[in-house]
C-alpha cells in the first residue's frame, strides 16, 4: 500500500469523526470554536503519530497478553510529554484545552490505530497512518468548530462579523454540537457515496 494512499485514507475513507465515529467526547466538547477544534486536533495528531511509530517498533517483542497495558503506558507517556510542553510554551492554549489533554490517553482513536494498524505494520507506514488519521481528525474538528462558531458566536477563527451581537448560543453548547455533528456526518457520507 502506498504511503500517500495511507494518508488520504485516514482523511476520507477512514475519517475518525465522520466515518469511524471514534473519539466523540473530545469532538463534542472542544469544538466550541474553530481554533479550539484545530488545536485539539493537532494535539491528538502529535500523540497519534508518535505512539503509532513507537508501538509498531516495539510490537514484535511485546507478549500478547500484556500488549494493551504496554500500549497504554506508551500512549500516556506521549500525552504527558505533550502536556508538559504545552504548559511550558503555550500556556494560553493549555488553559482552554487543559482538561481534555489528559483525556487523549483514553481517546479510542489512538488505541484503536495501535490495535488495528500499528502492531501489524512497519514504523514508516504506521507514521503515515498516524498522520492521515490525525489530519482527518484535525480537519473534522476544525470544520465542526468553524460551523459551531459561525452559528453560535457569529465569528470565524475569532474574527467577529456580526458586530457584538449574540449568535445562536445553543450551537456553542452541547445540543448544538450534536446537531452540527449529525448534519455534517450526513453531508460527508452523501459526498463519499457519490464518489
Amino acid at each position, binding site marked *: 500500500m502506498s504511503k500517500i494512499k495511507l494518508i488520504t485514507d485516514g482523511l476520507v475513507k477512514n475519517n475518525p469523526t465522520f466515518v469511524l465515529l471514534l473519539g466523540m467526547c473530545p469532538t463534542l466538547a472542544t469544538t466550541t470554536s474553530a481554533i479550539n477544534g484545530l488545536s485539539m486536533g493537532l494535539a491528538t495528531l502529535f500523540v497519534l503519530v508518535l505512539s503509532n511509530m513507537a508501538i509498531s517498533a516495539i510490537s514484535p517483542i511485546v507478549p500478547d497478553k500484556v500488549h494493551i*497495558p504496554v500500549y497504554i503506558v506508551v500512549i500516556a507517556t506521549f500525552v504527558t510529554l505533550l502536556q508538559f510542553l504545552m504548559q511550558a510554551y503555550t500556556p494560553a492554549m493549555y488553559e482552554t484545552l487543559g482538561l481534555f489533554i489528559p483525556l487523549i490517553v483514553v481517546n479510542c482513536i489512538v488505541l484503536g490505530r495501535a490495535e488495528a494498524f500499528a502492531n501489524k505494520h512497519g514504523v514508516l507506514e504506521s507514521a503515515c497512518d498516524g498522520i492521515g488519521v490525525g489530519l482527518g481528525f484535525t480537519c473534522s474538528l476544525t470544520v465542526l468548530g468553524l460551523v459551531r462558531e459561525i452559528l453560535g458566536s457569529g465569528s470565524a477563527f475569532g474574527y467577529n462579523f456580526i458586530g457584538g451581537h449574540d449568535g445562536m448560543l445553543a450551537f456553542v453548547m452541547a445540543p448544538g454540537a450534536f446537531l452540527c455533528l449529525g448534519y455534517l456526518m450526513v453531508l460527508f457520507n452523501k459526498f463519499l457515496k457519490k464518489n
Partner: protein
Amino acid sequence: MAVKSNLTNMVLVLSLTCLVCSGLLGGAYALTKEPIEKAQAEKTKSAISQVLPHFETLEYEDDHHYYTAFDGDRVVGYAIESSAVGFGGNISLMVGITPDGVVYNTSVLSHSETPGLGAKCTTDTKFMDQWRGFDPSVKQLSVKKDGGDVDAITASTITSRAYTQAVANALLLFDELGLDEINDEKEEEDHE
C-alpha cells in the same frame, strides 16, 4: 505480535516499558519545569499589573494569598486572589484594592463558565469596566436583581453573582486584615 506470553517475558517487557517511559518523563519534567514556572509567574504578574496602579516591587503573603504592591516605600495597593462558585465551577479572580478600600480593577484568573454566556465575564467590557474604581462604601455590592448596584451580564445572573461574591470576599479579607490603615500607621510613625 507473534510472541507467546509467559511470566518471564511479560514481567520483563512491562517493567522495561515502564522504566523507559518514566525515565523519559523524568527528563522531560526536569527540562520543562523552569519554563512552566516562568509561564505561571508571568501570568500572575500580568494579572496583578492589570488590577493595580503602577508599582515597583511585590510581596507575597502566604497565609492569606494576597500580594502587596510597593512603589518605593509607599503601599500602592493589594492584589487579592479570591474565588466563588459560579455556574460551571469556581470563578477565580485577582482583585486589586487600593489602600483607601476602593477596588482598582479586577481580572479573571480561571473559570469554567458556559461559553457564550457566563464566559463573557472575561470579554464583556460593560460588565468588566464597572469594577474600575468600585467604592463599596458608596455602592451596594450585589447585582441589580438582588437590589444592589452591579450590572449583571445579560442572561448570566449566576455568573455575575459569583463574580460579585468573589469581589466581596476580597474586600472582606481586606477589612479583616486591616489593610486600609497601613499607610496611616506609617505616617504616624513618621510623625513620631
